[in-house]
């Protein structure tokens, strides 16, 4: 590896606090891909015809840029969880605005809570690897896993989506959930156990 050394986020935060404009820009830009991932997962596909997920990311970064000074001053939480919080709020507002307005046209089968896209995404992941029961057809698996996820308590679903889909670290997940890393570890374990149990009992496979 011979490229220039990338300053880590802490250094960038330091430099940005000192008023370094380039550091500010880079600080935001380097988290774009992660935000894109998060928005992709959380974005309700019923919005797709009206809103471009990339715009949500762009607007998040713009808002973060405006709020950056206040953030740097207080640093209430780690940088990415802070950025993510802004994106989450924008998504919540968007979903509220668009989906409440067209509530009548929204299918009643859509689960509340986690947008269906998230459930789908998680199901995709479960299916992409060695599927627990290879005998089942892919399509059936998809439905099964999706249903299993919807059956999980929201607590469990939340932590699995954060850890495995958004790929947040334990510490970041703790920051997002207002919890401790130790609690997140145990909660992840419990959620995995329940997911496994639901899949095993529902499957009744030969």
């Amino acid at each position: 590896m011979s490229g220039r050394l990338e300053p880590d986020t802490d250094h960038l935060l330091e430099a940005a606090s000192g008023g370094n404009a380039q550091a500010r820009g880079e600080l935001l830009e380097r988290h774009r891909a992660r935000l894109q991932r998060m928005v992709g997962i959380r974005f309700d596909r019923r919005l797709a015809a009206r809103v471009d997920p990339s715009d949500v990311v762009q607007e998040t970064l713009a808002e973060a840029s405006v709020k950056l000074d206040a953030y740097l001053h207080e640093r209430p939480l780690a940088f990415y969880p802070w950025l993510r919080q802004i994106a989450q709020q924008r998504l919540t507002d968007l979903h509220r605005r668009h989906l409440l307005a067209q509530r009548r046209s929204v299918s009643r089968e859509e689960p509340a809570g986690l947008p269906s896209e998230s459930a789908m995404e998680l199901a995709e992941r479960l299916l992409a690897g060695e599927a627990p029961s290879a005998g089942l057809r892919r399509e059936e698996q998809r439905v099964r896993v999706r249903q299993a996820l919807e059956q999980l308590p929201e607590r469990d679903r939340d932590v699995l989506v954060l850890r495995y889909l958004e790929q947040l670290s334990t510490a970041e997940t703790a920051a997002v959930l207002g919890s401790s890393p130790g609690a997140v570890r145990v909660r992840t374990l419990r959620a995995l156990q329940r997911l496994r149990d639901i899949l095993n009992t529902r499957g009744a496979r030969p």
Partner: protein
Amino acid sequence: MTTQTINPAEKRVTELAVVVERLTSRLQAGEPLDIHEIVREYPQFAEELTGLLPAMAALASLPGSSATSGVRHDSIGGLPAELGDYRILREVGRGGMGIVY
């Protein structure tokens, strides 16, 4: 290490949770995990891990690189290439009321 008394069952859960975290990191780093090897590595959790690993492996199996993150972004204008049962071919038009696909 503090000497707070916790019961053995609780201690076991905490330890297993740490192992799961460790294995999750390895999975997310793209490391293929061999169940036999892992059972040898953590014999005390053999049974639990055998139950949990297939689900964990599947969860972590999509590429973690940002390029293929979240929704598939081999897409038009940042939209996923597929939406449910539909495949997006191209953008038809864009106007004040939204975008037509």
